[in-house]
């Protein structure tokens, strides 16, 4: 489990906006609606959704199991299939050869080649399992913060997209500029922040 590992990476967010009451029920429904779905037996290349922190391969949001004290603890799961290049090349070549023999032609058009490649990718995707990646989340709704236990750019972007779609709230990543805006500066000081230029410490 990422969050309970001896060392962790954290990207911090501020959550802005209000959920409809009762909030626990609302979040439960949003998590259920956007729960990860298995793609091992279909042609899907990637699946992204919420899963349970303590049971990432059997997501279950019944009974508010994700509510711990004043926190909501759950995970983002990204399942991705990756066909090895050489496997794709082999099966594509086999399909091209077969199509040429069947059609009695010497060549295939660009469109036919693309269609064949898409077909091969679809067939192979149904035969290979997806690799799951799990990223833990701790959300303190009352305090308006959320911690995401990964610094990976792609995972953070997927989180931001799915979170906004699921909860209809603003998720603002805390980096120097946004952290500055949330530092309790006065209006004129915020204007100053906008105008800042790098300091040159060398003479």
């Amino acid at each position, binding site marked *: 489990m990422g969050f309970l590992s001896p060392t962790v990476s954290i990207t911090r967010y501020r959550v802005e906006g209000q959920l409809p009451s009762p909030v626990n029920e609302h979040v439960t429904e949003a998590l259920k609606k956007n729960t990860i779905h298995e793609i091992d037996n279909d042609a899907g290349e990637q699946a992204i959704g919420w899963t349970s922190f303590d049971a990432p391969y059997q997501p279950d949001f019944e009974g508010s199991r994700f509510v*711990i004290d004043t926190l909501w603890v759950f995970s983002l799961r990204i399942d991705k299939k990756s066909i090895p290049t050489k496997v794709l090349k082999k099966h594509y070549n086999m399909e091209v050869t077969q199509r040429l023999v069947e059609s009695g032609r010497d060549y295939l058009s660009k469109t036919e080649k693309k269609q064949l490649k898409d077909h091969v990718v679809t067939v192979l995707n149904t035969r290979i399992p997806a690799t799951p990646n799990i990223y833990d989340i701790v959300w303190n709704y009352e305090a308006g913060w959320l911690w995401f236990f990964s610094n990976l750019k792609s995972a953070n972007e997927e989180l931001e997209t799915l979170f906004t779609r699921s909860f209809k709230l603003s998720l603002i990543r805390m980096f120097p500029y946004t952290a500055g805006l949330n530092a309790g500066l006065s209006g004129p000081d915020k204007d100053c922040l906008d105008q800042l230029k790098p300091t040159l410490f*060398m003479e």
Partner: protein
Amino acid sequence: MLDIAVAYRRYQFIGDEFLTWLWYVIENDPRRLNKIDTELASLEIGSRMVLANRHQKDSGETVTIKGEEANMDEGLVALRKGAMVAEVNLVYRSGDNEWRFNLKGESLNFSSLKVPETGKVETQEDIEGAIIEKVFLCEKVINLINNLFHYFIKLRVSNDWSAKTVPAMRKWITPS
């Protein structure tokens, strides 16, 4: 507010200046840290520091200093050439507890964060307690960095930055 991606790139220097200022305070004015965090026993530079020169667009020189007892003179030389601290490993102590972590200037992200040891999770029932304990321990160091950054940004937008802090930091950087 600016577009997030634009703001991230345009103001990444603020994070580098924050880490550079933090190194200066640790070296020259550690008592100021106690005013910001009254439970702080110590805050030290740990086993790694990365300095990057973002002013030199072509070369983009990066200097990495590694090791528990590393000589930081090389870092000061890099500062003299216009580099800033881009990433640093910090060791925070409060009471008998110790936190170690890397902090990146441009994102303020924590990585390799090691908090004081918590109780072992052996059963499903242990998980809830472990989560609450770990959140408490992570929150302590996150609050430290939040408070330090808030202190810094207020100083950075004030007149004191160019009138007092920058001259004092230049004096520190310049060899005597």
